[in-house]
């Protein structure tokens, strides 16, 4: 009888422990999501993927170094549509998507 009670007690303690761990995990996830910058899912065009080198050196051997010559004429259509202000009809990639540029100020 006493042994059964002990087992019951142990089981309850474990349930409480697991519950606490689960609660802490949920809270931690919630807090992380609420207070830190979330990574945005950036995809890159194959040309940029090829030309960019991983900054930490992990993929340096695989990447190619971008040079100005390799970039000649790139994205001209895109550029024109962007500078016209509205890219829908001149979309070089896909119909019905937005296009813009970033270069700092």
């Amino acid at each position, binding site marked *: 009888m006493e042994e059964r009670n002990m087992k019951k007690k142990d089981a309850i303690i474990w349930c409480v422990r697991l519950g606490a761990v689960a609660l802490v995990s949920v809270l931690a996830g919630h807090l992380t999501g609420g207070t830190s*910058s979330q990574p*945005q899912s*950036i995809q890159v065009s194959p040309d940029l*993927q090829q030309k960019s080198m991983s900054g930490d050196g992990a993929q340096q051997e695989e990447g190619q170094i971008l040079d100005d010559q390799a970039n000649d004429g*790139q*994205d001209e259509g895109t550029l024109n549509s962007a500078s016209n202000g509205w890219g829908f009809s001149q979309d070089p990639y896909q119909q019905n998507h937005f296009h*813009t540029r970033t*270069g*700092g100020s």
Partner: protein
Amino acid sequence: MIQDAFSFRAMNTRVEFQIRYGSEGDPVSKGEAEVASIRQAVVAIFEQVERICSRFLPDSELSVINRSLCQPISVSGLLFQILHHAERAYLKTGGVFNPAIYQRLHEVGYRYSMADKEGWKHTLFALQTEPPSEDLIPITAFPYTLDHQKRTVTRKEGMGIDLGGIAKGWTVDQAATFLASHGYGFVSAGGDIRLFGQHKIPVSIALENPVDPSQDVGTLFLEQGAVATSSVAKRKWKAGNRWFHHLIDPRTGQPVSNGILSCTVSASTAMEADVWAKTLLILGPKRGIESMKKHRLQAFWIDQDGKVRSVS
């Protein structure tokens, strides 16, 4: 109209938004008057922030603080919010982002808006006769304290406040929040871009080559959130034989010079992206990568040899 594209100038930069009204599966047509009022509302958002936060406008709330006698000054909710965000950014970036660069910007010549040709003529002349110091002048202190209960700000003695980039990013976010109630698209201002609404097809964002701005180095695709680019190739000037630009490294008090020409960072908001793009550019490759990884941010940067590097 089921879509609109509109651009205008504010904060001495080009502002643009593109929108499709309604949602992707359920487009909505707007009348001309409503389209005009939406455009006007976005312009008003930018004009209001500029009027309050510009360090170039003598009557702005920020200028009043910068001239104040270091007494608590009651400020608008808008300015208080941006000052609060700037304080948080300072802490989060370990002081790499610091609005206290105001004084140094002034000393190296950035005293007038880039649009003020007359002001710049005088400045460049003054810089030639009295060149800025090349000594290390680290900026370690934060330039103000906030009282959240009284909504007041107290400037610290001998310091000034510059909210340039962070105010621009914040404004882009505000405009995007407003436009999201009408449809989906993006807002862009001087390198800061924020998407709004639901995008089933990613927005393509060409990355300008800082060595040759007429060219792009590639394209990013984004479904939500924001990207921002900071570049030393913009807002720069020459006095004597020395080139200056507007990105001051608070650790040295001098314009950043580490071989990086531009940095593009993706984050949840344009304001955050703007802060981190600056931070990466200032920190340089080694410490910049550590910082981006720590904060789980994706970034690209281009160095003076035209090499593109990435961290994610």
